[in-house]
């Protein structure tokens, strides 16, 4: 079967005071529907830029991105705005709206598409139950812990039943216990809703836990990709080897089971 998300020869560079910084240099990636796909790499490898090119928060210089039959890179501004309503995104810093309660945050994107009040209430309740925060309905994000904030972030991202969920370092600001529970939640919603998840992370442990496949990104180039297990057993790329090295060292020294190891 052909892949659901296809990225073809994607290039992106940033210009700063006459210096050109090539962040992505020819990325090719294929992700099947319903997969949890991990993109791992060190800081500055271009992971975030890659995921942000998928919903064009960052405009790629060249290359193409498809989701299903839609070529994202060919959409005009209006079409893109509409398509984005069906692409969920969660962030390292959660980016919840402090001026709104938890339910208002989740209802935000529902209101964008003109959902009726009654449907919004029902949907918000359902999502709150899914992420286990029914009791925080009327709380403001400012009163929540990091893990709870990310749960709200996930509920908000899922409100419009997206087919794709982009996760940009979603667990990197969390403690090991919260990380673990957020990863389990992501796996659960992938299972339950069949949403395709692209997970950017520098925590190998996190990727290993829920991603069937991963791609290793190094200086804007994918140095290896494939089944997580294979890469774990026998990493070919530099980053992959270092990652595994560090990972092994950490799991020898640390007894905690959290995902914040690396």
């Amino acid at each position: 079967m052909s892949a659901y998300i296809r990225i073809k020869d994607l290039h992106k560079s940033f210009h700063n005071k006459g210096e050109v910084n090539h962040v992505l240099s020819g990325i090719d990636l294929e992700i099947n529907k319903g997969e949890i796909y991990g993109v791992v790499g060190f800081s500055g490898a271009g992971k975030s830029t890659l995921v942000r090119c998928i919903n064009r928060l960052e405009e790629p210089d060249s290359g193409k991105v498809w989701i299903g039959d839609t070529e994202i890179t060919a959409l005009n501004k209006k079409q893109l705005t509409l398509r984005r309503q069906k692409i969920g995104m969660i962030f390292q810093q959660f980016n919840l709206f402090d001026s709104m309660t938890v339910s208002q945050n989740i209802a935000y994107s529902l209101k964008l598409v003109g959902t009726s009040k009654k449907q919004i209430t029902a949907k918000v309740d359902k999502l709150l139950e899914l992420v286990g925060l029914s009791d925080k309905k009327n709380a403001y994000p400012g009163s929540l812990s990091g893990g709870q904030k990310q749960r709200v972030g996930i509920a908000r991202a899922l409100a419009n039943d997206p087919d794709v969920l982009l996760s940009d370092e979603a667990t990197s600001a969390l403690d090991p216990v919260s990380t673990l529970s957020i990863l389990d939640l992501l796996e659960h919603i992938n299972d339950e809703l069949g949403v395709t998840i692209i997970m950017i992370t520098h925590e190998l442990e996190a990727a290993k836990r829920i991603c069937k496949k991963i791609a290793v990104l190094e200086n804007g180039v994918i140095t290896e990709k494939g089944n997580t297990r294979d890469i774990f057993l026998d990493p070919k790329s530099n980053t992959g080897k270092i990652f595994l090295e560090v990972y092994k060292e950490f799991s020898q020294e640390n007894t905690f089971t959290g995902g914040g190891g690396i």
Partner: protein
Amino acid sequence: MSLSKYPFWEVVKHAFSSEVWDTLWPAVWDTLYMVALSALITLVLGVLLGIGLSIISKEGVRPIPVLNETAGTIVNCLRSLPQMIMIIITLPLARMLLGQSYGVNACIIALAASCIPMYARLVQGAFVEIPKGKIEAAKAMGSSSATIVFRVMLPEAIPSIIRGFTVALIGIISMTALAGSFGAGGIGDIAVRFGFNRFYHDMLIASVLVLIIMVEIAQVFGDLISGLILRKRHLV
């Protein structure tokens, strides 16, 4: 009562006499009227201009470089005029619009021209302070630019916008006093005519007292409201 003829405490005591306040009260009301009207105009137009400036700025949701440069230059020009100069150059404008260049209403034009650009910059600052990630989150969810501005940025920035308004309001109060010496009337007028020209220092003390109380009330209320919102959002 002049300080050169009477002991200090006598003058202070007389500052609370009905003789002084009979003259001062009408002026207090004039000042309150000028402040209230200018504040309202500044609030409405300042917020609108501030929103406009942040939308078209380089980092805004709809950057328009040419308009941004032009608007920015005009705002900066208006802001660089000392308030006294602003009052003098708006006098002909007041005569044109209102038929007279003195009185309470005439000075409101100067007050607005001076305070709107100032407040607009404070509003713009409040928008810039919003973490970029929140605006990106709104974009990623498929929000239009207008939705981002009015449903995300404005509510997020409200506490700062209120705090900025407190600053603007105090600026308006002080400028009203200044305008008093250019025929606007109000407390500033009393302070200049009696306190300065005739050495009625009891009048001067009473005028200063009123101004201090006004500024204090503005500050306390501004802090209270923005504080309440921040506490409701659990941000303090």
